[in-house]
């Protein structure tokens, strides 16, 4: 689904991503782990088209999308939920969701049906549908941005640290939801600091350290690996 080959990207003099190669197969849930500053978010942003790579290639669903714009990526079927959560604070929940379906805005009935589906999956959002996005709690905002990302009917989802700042119960809920999404056929690339939980639900994992892949393998392999700690602390 997603193929990244020797990708490098950064911000001016700072090279955040250095020659990363990874893959996300169709229907897989792959997690990208690593300490703060390891380059995970930058990697996601580059795949999603929000950050221009300096070298390397990105392919999505068989197409080369290395220099694609974020708008194009959404149209091709990739949705991203950034680490910063980025709810539009003074748009209502309903408006946020409606905007998520921007590329499908002509399919009025299909969009409405998906909206109902989201409300079913996230009943708290339905309760608050006319409230401004900025008034929601952290957990509700996280649900909102995931639901919003789903509104474009994507084939693949990039999730950047969905558990950030949430209580353990909420984290479990969110992860439960992610598994449900995977069961529905979505391919998911999950960036997480909470390595344990991420490895519990993932098929495979990569560990990023200082912008480079330091380890990769099946989730169980990585979980069993005793190097995980040093990889984290070293990065």
């Amino acid at each position, binding site marked *: 689904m997603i193929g990244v080959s020797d990708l490098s990207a950064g911000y001016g003099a700072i090279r955040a991503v250095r020659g990363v190669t990874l893959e996300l197969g169709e229907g897989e849930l792959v997690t990208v782990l690593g300490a703060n500053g390891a380059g995970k978010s930058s990697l996601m942003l580059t795949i*999603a088209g*929000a950050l221009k790579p300096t070298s390397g290639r990105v392919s999505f669903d068989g197409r080369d999308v290395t220099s694609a*714009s*974020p*708008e194009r*990526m*959404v*149209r091709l079927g990739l*949705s*991203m939920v*950034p680490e910063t959560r*980025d709810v*539009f*604070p*003074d*748009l209502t929940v309903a*408006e946020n969701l*409606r*905007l*998520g379906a*921007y*590329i499908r*805005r002509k399919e009025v009935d299909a969009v409405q049906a998906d909206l109902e589906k989201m409300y079913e999956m996230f009943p708290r959002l339905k309760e608050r549908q006319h409230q401004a996005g*900025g008034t929601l709690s952290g957990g509700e905002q996280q649900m909102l941005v995931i639901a*919003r*990302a789903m509104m*474009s009917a994507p084939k693949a989802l990039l999730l950047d640290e969905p558990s950030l700042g949430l209580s353990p119960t909420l984290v479990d809920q969110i992860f439960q939801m992610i598994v449900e999404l995977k069961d529905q056929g979505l391919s998911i690339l999950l960036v997480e600091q909470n390595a344990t939980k991420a490895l519990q639900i993932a098929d495979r994992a990569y560990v990023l350290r200082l912008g480079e892949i330091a380890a990769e393998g099946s989730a169980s392999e990585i979980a069993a690996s005793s190097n995980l700690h040093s990889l984290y602390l070293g990065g």
Partner: protein
Amino acid sequence: MTGFIQFIIDFLSLGGAYALMALGLVIVYGILKLVNFAYGELIMVAGYTLFLVGGTGMPWIIMAIVAIAMSVLMGIATDYVAFRPVRAKSVTAVLITSFAFSTLLQNGALLFISPRPRNIPLPEIFTKTVEIAGVVTPVRNLLTIATAVISLSLFTWLMRRSVIGIAMRAAATNFTMARMLGVPANLIITSAFAISGLLAGIVSMFWLGRIGAVVPGIGLEPLLIAFIATVIGGMRSLLGAVVGGFLLAFIDTGLNYTLPQDLLKFRDAFTFSLVILILLWRPEGLMKGPASGQRT
């Protein structure tokens, strides 16, 4: 009592004009976080268009539509000439390029048309007056109020109900995130400039109607009005622009009525002092904008 009604009519018609001017400026600033110094020239362009088509004998309303259309086109052109090439570089760069573009346009008019005022055609109805509750006032004032109300309502509807309006509001808060939902960046920006041109074009019909002629520097006063109204209203809020516009009109009209004759020529200095006081009290403007917007 008649004095009061006179004041209300003056205040509302000026306020409507000011609010539209301010709105045209803020809609671009809100999304791009960039100030358009060439905004006043949209009014100049509308004026000169009226002058140029003035001899063709078309009904005035057609001429007005043509003038407004030119304003819209010039708004879009401003984006391509002054903004797009430098948008990514720095905020200051854009301020300067739009200032340079403004000078370019003004000197263009100076060179290719004339530095002297040129008369513009006005509809008959602008010369008529009407009496309301004992107060005689130009019909134009009432038309300004009506047009402002209609324009503001349509604009609000557009922003709140249409998908493009929601997309623009989202882009104003967080452009990158809007793009990551598939909202096409360039379309949003072009729409913002087009709407900016439309609002400026509409206001210019009444503004020029008051003056009756056009000069290259005619855009300066509206630019200043839009500037001040947006600053006191709060730069990132559309409602703030409208509130700022009416507040500024209130101050100006009020000063017109209360300043002694020999101080009247300093009215702008007084207005500005009051504005400074408002800013001292509330540096971010009167209305809170959307929570932290980020630049493109």
